[in-house]
């Protein structure tokens, strides 16, 4: 597809929605959550991988019975994954979905007009 064709498909209503303060707020909230969260869980996961590789003595420390730090650390990755997923579900339902719905309704209205 040529540039002209790409441009021809463009619907100006998207420019109007994009310029609204609601959209700016939606994008700010979305990015404000997912960017730090992604950095955090990737760093936490890489810490686990690096400790498993280069801190064998620490990871092999026995906590109780045959349960060692490595196992607990691994299981904590499960806990943080479930926890972050749950936090995002709550956050997006409360802070993102209402704004997204409002903008989508404006799109439908504008499209009919």
């Amino acid at each position: 597809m040529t540039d002209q064709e790409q441009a021809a498909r463009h619907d100006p209503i998207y420019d109007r929605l994009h310029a609204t303060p609601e959209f700016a707020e939606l994008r700010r909230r979305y990015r404000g959550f997912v960017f730090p969260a992604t950095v955090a869980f990737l760093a936490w996961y890489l810490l686990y991988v690096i400790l498993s590789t280069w801190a064998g003595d620490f990871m092999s420390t026995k906590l109780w019975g045959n349960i060692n730090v490595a196992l607990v650390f691994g299981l904590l990755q499960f806990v943080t994954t479930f926890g972050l997923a749950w936090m995002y579900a709550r956050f997006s339902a409360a802070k993102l979905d209402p704004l997204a719905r409002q903008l989508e309704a404006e799109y439908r209205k504008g499209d009919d007009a």
Partner: protein
Amino acid sequence: MDTQLLTTFLFLTVVALTIGITFWASRQTKTAADFYSGGRSFSGFQNGLAIGGDYMSAASFLGISGAIAVYGYDGFLYSIGFLVAWLVALLLVAEMLRNAGRYTMADQLAFRMSQRPVRTAASVSTVVVSIFYLLAQMVGAGSLVALLLGVDSQAIKNITIIGVGALMIFYVVVGGMKGTTYVQIVKAVLLMIGSALIVVLVLAEFNFNLSDLLGAAADNSGKGEAFLQPGLQYGASLTSQIDFLSLGLALVLGTAGLPHILIRFYTVPTAQDARKSVLWAIGLIGAFYLMTLVLGFGAAAMLDRDQVDPLEGGNQNLASPLLAEAVGGGEGSTGGAILLALIAAVAFATILAVVAGLTLASSSSVAHDLYKGVIKKDEPVSEHDEVRVARIAAFVIGAVAIALSIPAQRLNIAFLVALAFAVAASANLPAIIYNMFWRRFNTRGATWSIYGGLIAAVGLVFFSPVMSSLPTSLFPDSDWAIFPLNNPGIISIPIGFLLGYLGTISSREPAAEDRFTELEVRALTGAGAEQAVKH
């Protein structure tokens, strides 16, 4: 009781059930949207189950428990990487993709870029990733069936691979996305129930004391304490340590670039449902990987050691079915025979569901991206014609996968899957992320990152010890392994991102930037997104 008879009966039951579902689904598949996306009418919960069914592959069920049984703690890394990876899909990909695309991964790139180059690139990488992944599943099927028939016959393995290939072609050609989804839902339920049953029986043997189970696993493994600590598989040298890091990166970044997972987000009516599906999937998959931990250590603790021999590449994958036999009372007992047959049937259902998803993803991309978007770009293509091409593509891809699976049988299947993840993370993820978040990103950036990541990942594997130089290599008698790592991710993923960046800044494409406004609004709000089909 005759295990083989019972097993054969259960296998045939699974096959009959899935064939029935497929015929039923075929009656509801009329339009292209039905074929590619099941009419976008699945609920978040249904799709969450189907994602679980698509993702918890034979490589997980057989491969990870086998890796834990042989290498102890190091096998657990696969589970953790495979699970944490879902956060990338949840936070950055699922909802935006649902809103921006239509049927394939390429759609969201083609939204603001030149159709031909990006569709071609995305289609090539979709097919390559899917074929790597297909090999893993089909190799697993071959060794599983050979075990159950009690003969280590190459002919039986080959016949099984051909049979599984024929079934997956059937599911996709006849049932499309709807049939494939229901097969995956049924499989997810069977797999969770089957695994939970064995896990409870294993834990009961150790009075539900995890520490005792781990102790018994360490003792019986012959490796002692080291079995419960990281490093057994990867700790030997700096090279293998870096290999481990490389594997870890590919696992966590690969999921959100797997084409058969990405197209699942199109099967629900809204982005909110796509989010719900991922949340359900995370719950299911997390629970499942916790169970593989018990299965793997259980196999290490309870099996006769010569049955789980790391040097016998194929046998490692059989840890779970053999464990089922052991907890049922051991070889020759009625309980053992029943549980072995049951778990084997579950594993078989698992393989069928995953291969169907992969075949669908790659044939959709060939029809929708290559045929409609590139070859017939300037002519109208009827939906009927497009779906016909998708069905033909399913045949061809199935045949290629069968032909390649037969020589690939020497490789560990969890490892084959890890390679598919490395390719997905290097070739697909950079383009997807840049496209959603970077206004400047353009056609050249997309094609460079896809081809660059793909060539880097596949090329590095080709020159790695996986292919040559070691007794475990595909070609053990030759040596062209100039790259020391088995896992290419640590090099190929940065290459994918870097080339996406360089391609973009070396070219100007104003239209792609203008269209980003539209993409952003649509991705975040759902304004103008594809609607569910109403019948």
